[in-house]
Every structure is written in structure tokens, then in C-alpha cells.
């Protein structure tokens, strides 16, 4: 059957057009495949871990739709949890657990002047699916010369990553933390994600 007459004259239909804007790639929250694979592997390997643990860091945020770009996997747990995870992930361990103190690259942006941020944790490092995995037990934070804060504690929330149930540090805790550090850009990113998940205009 031949095609019907091919209209070569441009035509304007008299109908309403709904304007739209296609998002730019950087606006879309998509986790990279290497970190996705590492997250799934961690979730499967630690599924029966008895200690409390959860995905933290930027990875924990992107799993809840926050538009950040993680470059490694971070797990927050207790000191005992760090030891238990070390046993489970012994085959992929890079650094044995030890207590570390590390100054972060970004200062607390607080008045009257910015202050350095130091973290202290019982930490070990792994390479899982080719990705760096840091496990922090009893992570504490200190701003400037103030006293160390209590070890970070939380009730994990859960995200299903391609069918694997993974505990994640709650966004509410991260938001409070960032607010206290004066990282308002990060607070804003979390607020945007929460709004998008709870039918509020961004």
C-alpha cells in the first residue's frame, strides 16, 4: 500500500501547546553504575550484620534523591559494628580498623568566623566492586576547639536498591548536621529533595 499524499507544506495546528523544559543532565539525580554496583554488593554482604549500620555521606543522600555527586561509599556504624563489618568484608579490606582524626576540607561556616571541622572515628577502608568504601565506627565531630560531639547515632531509614534493602542515614539528621555547620547550600539541596518527595513546589 503506498503512503498517503505526503504533506510538504508546514502547517500550524490551532491547538494549545503545553510549554515544557527538558531537564539538563546535571539536574537529574542518577547514581553512577560503579557506585550503584558497590551499594548493592555492600547491602547483600551486610544483610545479616547484627550491628547497626547505614549508608552515609553523599551516597546516602543521593539514594533519597538529593542532587549530589558521591565518589565513594560511606558506612556509619558503631565501633563494634566496624569490627563486625571487618570480619564480613575481610576479603576486600584495604586498611584495618584504627582510630583516626581527620580535618575536613570544608570549614564550618559559622559566626563570627569559619571554624575547621575535625572528625574522629574507628575507621577502616575497603575496595568493593572497585569502589572505595569507608566504614566509620562511633563517628564524632568537633568544630574548632569546641568539645567533641557525641558519637553520631540514628534510626536508619531504608531504600531498596534494585531489590536489595539498604539502611541509610536519615536525611533529617544530615539536615540538622549541615544546619549546625552552616552548610546552607547542603541544607537547601536536602530541602529540595524532601519537597519533591512530599508534593511541595520547589
Amino acid at each position, binding site marked *: *500500500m*503506498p*503512503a*498517503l499524499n*505526503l*504533506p*510538504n507544506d*508546514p*502547517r*500550524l*495546528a*490551532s*491547538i*494549545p*501547546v*503545553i*510549554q*515544557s*523544559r*527538558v*531537564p539538563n*543532565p546535571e539536574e*537529574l*539525580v*542518577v*547514581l*553512577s*553504575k560503579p*557506585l*550503584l554496583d558497590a*551499594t548493592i554488593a555492600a547491602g547483600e554482604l551486610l544483610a545479616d550484620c547484627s550491628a547497626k549500620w547505614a549508608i552515609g555521606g553523599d551516597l546516602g543522600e*543521593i*539514594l*533519597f*534523591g538529593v542532587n549530589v555527586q558521591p565518589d565513594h561509599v560511606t558506612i556509619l556504624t558503631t565501633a563494634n559494628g566496624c569490627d563486625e563489618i571487618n570480619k564480613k568484608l575481610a576479603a576486600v579490606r584495604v586498611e584495618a580498623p584504627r582510630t583516626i582524626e581527620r580535618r575536613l576540607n570544608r570549614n564550618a561556616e559559622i559566626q563570627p568566623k569559619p571554624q575547621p571541622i575535625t572528625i574522629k572515628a574507628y575507621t577502616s577502608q575497603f575496595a568493593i566492586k572497585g569502589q572505595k568504601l569507608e566504614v566509620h565506627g562511633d563517628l564524632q565531630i568537633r568544630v574548632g576547639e569546641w568539645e567533641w560531639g557525641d558519637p553520631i547515632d540514628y534510626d536508619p*531509614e*531504608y*531504600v*531498596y*536498591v*534494585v*531489590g536489595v534493602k539498604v539502611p541509610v542515614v536519615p536525611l533529617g539528621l544530615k539536615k540538622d548536621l549541615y544546619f549546625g555547620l552552616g552548610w546552607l547550600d547542603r541544607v537547601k539541596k536536602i530541602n529540595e529533595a524532601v*519537597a*519533591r*518527595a*512530599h*508534593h*511541595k*513546589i*520547589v
Partner: protein
Amino acid sequence: MSTVINEPAVDVVCLGVGYMSGVVATELARQNYKVVGITKGPYWDYVNDFSMTKYDEWGVGLGRKYDSPLPLQSATIRNNSSQFALPVRRYTMPIQYHALGHGVGGAAQHYGGTMGRQGPWGYQQQSLTASKYGSTFLAGINPQDDTHDWPLTYAQYEPYYVEWEKAHGLCGNYNGSPTNSSSDTNFPWMSTNYPLPPHPLTPIANMFSTAASALGYHPFPHVSALASQAYTNQYGVTVNPCVYDGYCGGPCDYACETGAKANAAYRTIPAAIKSGNFTLVTNGFIFRLDYNTTNNQVTAVRYYDAQGNIHVQPATVFFNGMWGYNMIRSYLLSGVGTPYQYNSGTGTGTGTIGRGLTNGYLPFKGTSVSGTLNIGGNSYPAGNGSGGSVDIYDLMDDNFDHTGLNFIGGSQVGMGSYMGGGPGNITFAGGASSGNMGSTFKATQQNKYLPTKTSVGSTPLAHDLPTFMNYIDLDPHYTDAYGDPVARITHEWTANTYNGATYLVNKVKAILTQMGASNVTVGSTVSPYSARNDWWGHHLRGGCRVGSDPSFAAYSGYNQLFLTATSGVNIFGAGEITNTTGDNIPSGTHAAGPQSYRAAEGIVKYLQNVGTSGVNYLAA
């Protein structure tokens, strides 16, 4: 001044950007092929486009403000080939209930999210029926029968099901298979469970589950495409969970303002865009495929932009992911494939494009059973469009003996879903009656939200079988906004649907009785063709079927348009539900979905061979 614009050639062009194109575009773009997707509507941002404007029953349910505008294009409908087909001029009762989608995500922007795999029998229903009940059985129960097997078996499609379910984050817990092994030929066994758990069950769903189990059936939670939990799919796309606000399914078919309702816009297309290899064209109305009949090659697709310019987009391969009758129309307008020709004198037909039309939305009327449960409570219609209920597959497919019966297949039966229609529940679905207008309506509203009793019931219609007399062609009288003929739909539900309900209603009656329902009553028998239905749904199936033989099927086992056993066209397709050959499940989308992965696989094979070996057809 409007003009003609020639676009640069790419590897693949996707016609439409709904569920199926979303998979193909994403799979191909992530393998570094250059892909263009063209949709006639906008890109919807679920927050900024829906958050504040969706709570509008009038605008959404009656005005269909998010859906495909009928002034742009419509379709005409008739019951048989001797009638004059009338155009659909509004998305309300009577005639038309469900609207086509518009823009990225397509109709899945507004559906209820119901899913459910097709069982093994559905893929081989013609051969299995013939071998068990005789070669004349189907012809005996289905005048002008045109039923055929699929080109692949359930076991062959099963891995593609898994990918589809992972991509869209389906919720459920297996499908009731007693063994869940590949030796189960009755139930859709699963090599991998659904990636998300089911939604919380309602009290009625639990009662149904207990009663069904007591009767030897195999209940399982209703499968839903509305994310029950926060989710990340295999493409790394993050998904918000359902907020159970109630404005979801029901007669209005609301869009989702958190992106929990699975569709291409919020599951696959973000990954395609992120790849850097995908270009999305919005407000582009496709009107022709440039087709070279000497070598059976489509060279370009033509579309109008919002300013009326014509764009010519060439590609190596094309994927037709438009909604059912628009896919068929695009081929008929462009001279691609062999159009179906019905011969009313012989009750047979030839050709494939438009052939084998069935309707997944079953008639509004049929033999039904109802009862009353003495449970009350707050029935504020929150929840969502496809959660909370429990189903059984025991009364569908060939999961019970059909010897001596006048139908084949049966019905998925389920109960206990959330109301999910939004406060007020516009009652236009079903047409005007004394029950949904005037004083009677007001009286029933008075105690609507704090009832002490709940009505339950079912109309277990069997599936609509393919026949020669139901088909799609081009309407000779009505045109779209650009002057091209619209699709003409010739369809009447087959006797199988009604006969199934008349038999199965007593099976459901037993379940209601087991649940402790009172006043369990079977309604008057509705015989085939005894009552004209005053509504018509958009859940078309068939019309561009997959199959092993191009004498009856438009698409091969790789969903490539084929012309003979050895020649094909460089276009693949898996439009929503378009390729099924009649099935029993409520969601043809779920059965169509795996084909999009199959088509993506075929397109890659095609691209890897074309130009090197001259291959233009992939044997499945």
C-alpha cells in the same frame, strides 16, 4: 514563517516517549548509540507541573487537562464493519473513558499503576487449547477466531520481565505459583521476586486472602507500579515512595506529584538524558515515516513542531513506541507493512497492520456477584490506585478445566484495594443514573465516609479473544488537526468475555460466602451481545501483533516489523499492549514491557550487523 528542517542522522529514533520507548532509548543510549525520542506533548516535571494543579477533579477527570488533546487527534469507533464510525469528541461517558497520554511518560502518567505478569498459558493459548480441547474448540466458542501463539514462550520472556520490573520498581510478592519453579505451566513463576515489597493490605484484602486460601486458591498481593518504598533502579535513577494521598487512580486518573507512579519520565528517560547520547524532542507531532519500498527501509521520520515547521529526522533504525492505534495509524499513513483487509463475506482477512484487535478493558456490563461485609471504619478515599488488594490467578488461563465450557481463559479475581479516587469521587464513570445524580446520590453521600458496612463484588469477565472482525484501519471521513485520516476502530467484545463471567461468578460467590459476606447475590445473566455497552476503554491489545509468521503477525520475535519469513523493515515496535494476542490480565503493559527489552536487544543486533553483512531481518 514555517519551513522544513533537516535534522542530523542518528542511530535510533524512538517514536513516542512512553513506557516502551523509555526502555529502548535508555538501553541504547547507555551503550553509546545516538538516540532521538520524539513526543507530541511536553516533558512533565512531577513537582512543578502536578503538585498544585492535580487536585482538580473537574479539570483532570472531565477536562483531561494533562492528556492527549482530542482537537489534535482522535479516533472513530464502531461495533462492526457495517456501521458508520463516530469520532470520540470528549473523554467522558458515554463512549470514551480512558484518555491517551500526552508527553514524556505517555498514558502511564495518569494510570492507576496496576501490573501483573501474563502466565505461561497466555503465550501459547492457541496451541495449548487445541491440544487439550481439540482443534475446533476455539472456533466453536469464538466466531471468526484469529487467535495465535506468541513467538516466544513465557520462559523465554521471563528474563526480560525481570529487567522490566527492576527498571520500574514494581511492588509485589510473587504471583501465587505454588512451587514457583519453571515447571509450573499455570502460574507466572518468577526467577527473581519483585524489587519492592507490596503495599500494606487492607482488612478486606486480608479477609479475601484467608477465604481464598481456605478454598484451595493461591492468593498474592496485587502487583503495583506505584513505589511502596524509596527505590533506586538498575540505571541509578532514584524514586520517591508513594505518599498515599488518594489522588491517584479512580475515575479521574490523576498524575503523581512525587514521581512514585512508574513511567518513562521518572524511571528510564533520566538515565538516557544523563548518558549524553539522548535528545528529547517535545511537542513534535509525528505524521509520516519516509519509506523506501525498493529496499524496505525507513529512512526518516517527519514531524511538525509547535510552530508548524516540518522536521525530517533520519536514522539507521526506528522504534515505534506510540500508543496502540497511533502506532498502527503511522504505518497505514506511511505505507509501511501490509494493511489488514477484512472480508465480511468470508469472515476472514488478510494483512497484519491493524489485525487482531482486542480490548483489555472489559465491558462495563456482565454477570456479576455482590455481597456485604459487616466491617466499617473510615473509608476516606486515600491510598493509591493499585495497592492494598489481593489477587488470585486460579480462575484465569487454563488453571481449571474448560471441558464442556463455552469459553476459554478466565479472570484474575482480586479484592480490597484502596479507594484512591480522591475526595468526592466524581461519579460519571458508568454514565448518568439515579444512583449517581439527584436526591439518591445525595442520600448515599451522607454517610459515605464512615460506613458500617462495605459492599464487595466482582464481574469475572474472561478475556477478549482476537477475531477477524475486530480491527483498526484509517477512517475515510474524519481527520486530525493536520488533515490526515484518524484511526478507525472496529470492535465488539467477543462472546468469550460474557460467557466467562456467567460461569465464574459462582466461583466468586463461594469466595464471598467464605469471607462471611451477607446478601451474596448473583445478578442477572448478561448474554453475549445482549446489551450494548455505553462505554469504551482505551486499553487496546493486538492490532500489531508479535508472532512467528508474517501472515498474521506484524512483528517478529525481536519485535521487528517483518514482511516475509526472511525479510523485514528497519523498524521495531512494542507499543503499549499492542502486541498481545488476547490475555486475561488487567495490565497488558506488564506483558508488553518485556518486549521493549527484547526489541532493544534486537536493535543492538541489527545495528551491529547492518552495513557489514547487509542484514535487515533478525530471525528470532
